[in-house]
């Protein structure tokens, strides 16, 4: 895992784990690796991983079971809310980048449609399965 060094690492870890849950790499109800294993995987301090997990527990994405570890929530509403949040965040990032280039909303929509059509035709050639790291 590579992190950008100008955003808090615990936030990046949160995002990463949320991404893994949304993409289905980690199933609802599944147990997460231990803090130390995660720290090793990310090459970061255990305190940082702990902080990321703590935040996710507060947001109810994870559920901490005393003495047994951390589990992904089985509440589909929460996961769905996370998915919406992530989609929105990605769109905001993309939109603000294009907007900064002075591209009109109509043009953006047109390009996005073209892009999706093109992707669909290429789907057969590319392996679409996402690599799961956790």
């Amino acid at each position: 895992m590579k992190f950008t060094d100008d955003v808090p690492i615990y936030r990046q870890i949160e995002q990463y784990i949320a991404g893994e849950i949304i993409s289905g790499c980690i199933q609802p109800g599944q147990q997460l690796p231990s803090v130390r294993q995660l720290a090793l995987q990310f090459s970061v301090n255990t305190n940082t991983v702990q902080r990321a997990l703590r935040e996710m527990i507060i947001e109810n994405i994870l559920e901490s079971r005393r003495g047994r570890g951390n589990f992904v929530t089985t509440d589909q509403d929460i996961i769905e809310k996370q998915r919406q949040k992530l989609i929105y965040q990605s769109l905001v990032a993309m939109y603000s980048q294009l907007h900064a280039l002075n591209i009109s909303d109509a043009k953006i929509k047109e390009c996005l449609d073209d892009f999706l059509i093109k992707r669909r035709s290429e789907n057969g050639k590319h392996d679409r399965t996402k690599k799961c790291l956790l």
Partner: protein
Amino acid sequence: MENTIELKNVSYKRNQRVILENINLAVQKGTTIGLLGENGAGKTTLMRSIAGIAKGARGTIKIKNEAGIVERKALVSYTDSLDGFSRGTKIADIVEFYSLVYTDFSNDKYRELSDFLDFGSDQQKLGELSKGMKEKLVISLTLARRASVYLLDEPFEGIDSMTRKKIVNSLIQWKSSEAVMVISDHYITEIAGLLDEVAIIKDDKLIAQEKAEKIREQGKSIEDFYEGLYEKGVQTDDELSKNE
């Protein structure tokens, strides 16, 4: 929370030169802190003072509230460069020495570390080890003690990046959650993820101590923060010379 390391007004002079000036530092239990600064800024002397092998440091140095030198030595595990052993000494003999002399040395922990870092047979002689292998040995010996404070003095100096990654992972895996780890270095990209806090030492003074995530929350990388502070210092020096 309880401070594991507490330094108050620590000053140190050697050879008619001030090397540390009024250092105040408090490090909480469980923290990994990077001690950053250029060569000659005083990092090693600060570590030697904490470990109790630099003499004549003024001020108070406490480890878990213990100020006595012998008590501190029992609580602190410092990376010794093994210069006290002759080049012909076998690794096995060095391990034997450590396990005899340090009551908190765990042979099991050493085995795990040395297997993980993989620097070969313990029948090798010290003089036969490459720089990277020797550093791996030093790290294994240092972390195999069940100490409260680990002082790693430039553990990545002159080490290739593969070895560096391996060492970083060993630090993540084998540091107990209560222990404090101080890592000194003069460049930090590789260890940035490892640090809870950074302390920056410049011209014999501790000029900053800050939480790593707090720096990133301000949209800065630790490197920016470190370099920013060093440059700022240069500017003030220039201004001073202008005023003269």
